[in-house]
């Protein structure tokens, strides 16, 4: 059995938990990723990259469905993580698992898909189409949204 070198991390209001199931590594993020956890997130992502290489994995998934906020400094940590993939120095794919009932998740991560369109994807855990993670067209704020809060009947 392969020993995963990554451990669960709690930093301020962010929790990061790794699970290795066969050859599938999933990193779950929960809580809030803001200025109090950004450094820990960056270091952790560095360890994830090392672990993917050490275990010879071809993909890693980040489950952000329980994440309430990802500030721009935290997003930058993911940009740093993905940069070697974009430059071709690391070869693995990255899938972000989002909950399309929480509209910001796909919208936020769309920038990472545009950065690495071949190697990064976004998938709805509710079974929605994977797609390019566009997260909707900006300025569509008046469009009917399935994510709108509904009054209880």
């Amino acid at each position, binding site marked *: 059995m392969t020993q995963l070198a990554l451990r669960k991390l709690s930093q301020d*209001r962010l929790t990061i938990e790794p699970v290795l199931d066969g050859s599938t590594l999933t990193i779950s993020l929960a809580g809030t990723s803001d200025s109090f956890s950004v450094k820990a997130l960056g270091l952790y992502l560095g360890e994830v990259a090392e672990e993917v290489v050490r275990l010879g994995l071809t993909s890693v998934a980040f489950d952000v469905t329980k994440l309430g906020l990802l500030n*721009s400094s935290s997003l930058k940590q993911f940009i740093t993580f993905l940069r070697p993939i974009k430059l071709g120095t690391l070869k693995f794919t990255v899938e972000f698992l989002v909950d399309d009932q929480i*509209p910001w998740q796909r919208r936020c991560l769309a*920038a990472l898909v545009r950065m690495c369109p071949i190697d990064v994807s976004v998938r709805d855990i509710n079974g929605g189409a994977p797609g390019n993670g566009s997260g909707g067209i900006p300025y569509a*704020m008046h469009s009917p949204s399935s994510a709108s809060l509904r009054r209880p009947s």
Partner: protein
Amino acid sequence: MTDRPSAPVGEKNISLFICMSFCPSEHLVSAISQLVSDFCQIGLRDLDTSSRFHMAAHELAENITKYSTTSRVSLEVELSETDGKHVLSVKTRNHASPERLLEMEKRLNELKFTDDPVAVYDRMIEETAPLEGVSGLGLARIRAEGGLDFDYTINGNELTLMVHGPVPKPAPPEEAT
């Protein structure tokens, strides 16, 4: 939130206004942005809109906390209606160094007037990717990801920055059970 009759043509009808004036503190950033988000959800009952303004308020509150050169900053939230169009705005005020103001002015001008905010955002991601410890993406994110517009004024060393966007008609107040 009050259910007021429409204002006369061209007149701005403000249905809610919140102003927070505070000493810059990282510990307040999440609380403030959460307040803006809660306010949106209660008033508009639209998760998409509230998540855009939650992100915007968080980025703006982080910016004024990080770059203010004085011990007093402010953040205002306003929901208004003009000629049947509803707009939500978040306005921040802070003093900053001349160097920071120059940089902000350049960035805000580009973001305010671009026809393609997503392309500008992607370019900024590309440019800042090699830089360690620098995000520099907050404002571009508000414009591109949030789909919100900017207005700003610089008066001396004071920067007033307003982020705004159209929102659905506010929901009528729910009756308490």
